[in-house]
């Protein structure tokens, strides 16, 4: 690290260190590679602007919080905050491909699903507020406190969202296995 107070250089190093985390979150939220690129770029430039006010605690959670907000703004049309009940998502899943998602890659519907396809599909159908908690916990391995900061919700809410997400996933996977 440079000892000279070069804020932009500090920020560049910080952004580089957490860029994969930022991209992974964006990609799972918007589920489109090009849009995820845009979200991350936009988020990083905003972060640079706010860097002066950053207190220095947990840079990754701070960056992810900005990425998440940018992604949600881009997804505004999609009722981002709404979450389906367990029953709704399960019945949607049971209805099969009736709700085909245009963002899904075309071959996904043709190929016989291996584990990755299955988990992609299941995660894609999770309500956004559940999916983001799950991705932050299981893929980014954030603590409850960090997740609460990123998604701007109380820890208790994070816990219950995580629980619903995991329960849905486990039950949906059982249904998939049973129906194949």
């Amino acid at each position, binding site marked *: 690290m440079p000892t000279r107070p*070069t*804020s*932009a250089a*500090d920020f*560049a*190093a*910080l*952004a*580089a*260190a957490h*860029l*994969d985390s930022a*991209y*992974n979150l964006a990609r799972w939220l918007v589920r489109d590679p090009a849009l995820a*690129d845009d979200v*991350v*770029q936009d988020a*990083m*430039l905003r972060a*640079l*602007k706010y*860097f002066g006010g*950053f*207190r*220095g*605690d*947990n840079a*990754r959670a701070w960056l992810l919080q900005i990425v998440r907000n940018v992604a949600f703004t881009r997804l505004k049309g999609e009722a981002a905050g709404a979450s389906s009940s*367990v*029953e709704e998502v399960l019945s949607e899943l049971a209805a099969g491909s009736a709700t085909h998602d245009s963002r899904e890659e075309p071959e996904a519907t043709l190929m016989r699903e*291996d*584990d*990755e396809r*299955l*988990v*992609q599909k*299941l*995660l894609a159908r999770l309500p956004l507020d559940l999916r983001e908690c*799950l991705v932050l916990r*299981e*893929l980014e*391995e*954030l*603590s*409850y*406190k*960090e997740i609460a900061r990123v998604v701007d919700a*109380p*820890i*208790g809410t994070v*816990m*219950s969202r*995580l*629980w619903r997400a*995991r*329960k849905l*996933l*486990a*039950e949906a*996977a059982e249904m998939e296995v049973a129906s194949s």
Partner: protein
Amino acid sequence: MNREFACPRALLVQADFDGELDAAQAAALIEHERECAHCRRARWQLGRSRALLRAAPRYTASDELRERIARGVQAADGAAAADLGASAAPSRDRPRLESWSRRAPFGWVSALAAAAALLIVVLLPRSPDVGSQLVANHVRAMQLDSHLIDVVSSDHHTVKPWFAGKVPFAPLVKRLDSDDYVLKGGRVDIVNGAPAAVLVYQAGRHIVELYQWPASAGTRALRASRQLDGFNLRRWEENGLAIWSVSDMSAEELDRFVQHWRQ
């Protein structure tokens, strides 16, 4: 909500699964899971979902995106420099990048405890009430003979100090001067997720247990006597402690015991 939390401690099982519980909380939970099929299923589902997620890719930023951002930061630097200069704390006060650990364990334990406490309060109507817990504890202790008494002694000067450091309060321990009631010993049990001191007395062919923990406003409203699954329970307060006695003795016999104990 009902389907999601068949047992209100499911979220604590999850917190344990995510490594967010301290050792004492985790230990109490293991105890609970032995008794609770809902929580055992919850743990199974957690494992199932995690196994599934191992197949989920962790996407990484492309080199092109990295370059784009590096260029963007450079370009914005000139424009942002003024802002940074005006509002930033001196850079040397900012932690170095290396010191930002991936997981910073700040005050999250207490935050989690607060969340868990809140959860218990919110879900209390659905959790087993204290009486049911005591009966369940009593039955379990009777079934597992070795679990009934952790300190075997009829001497209250032995039993009372044994509790020191095991429960965060000083329980009332009395050796009853009566041939009818003999102090057998004591143990620590969990009630409402917190440690309780338990005294075990032999009364003829019956066992009487006395559970003690610090009294709180919440338990004060509970009934002083009740019957549950063939067991009799008596509740009172003494020296700031909530005291419950549980036994399969008849209501009259238990009243006599309590009267004698309280003299």
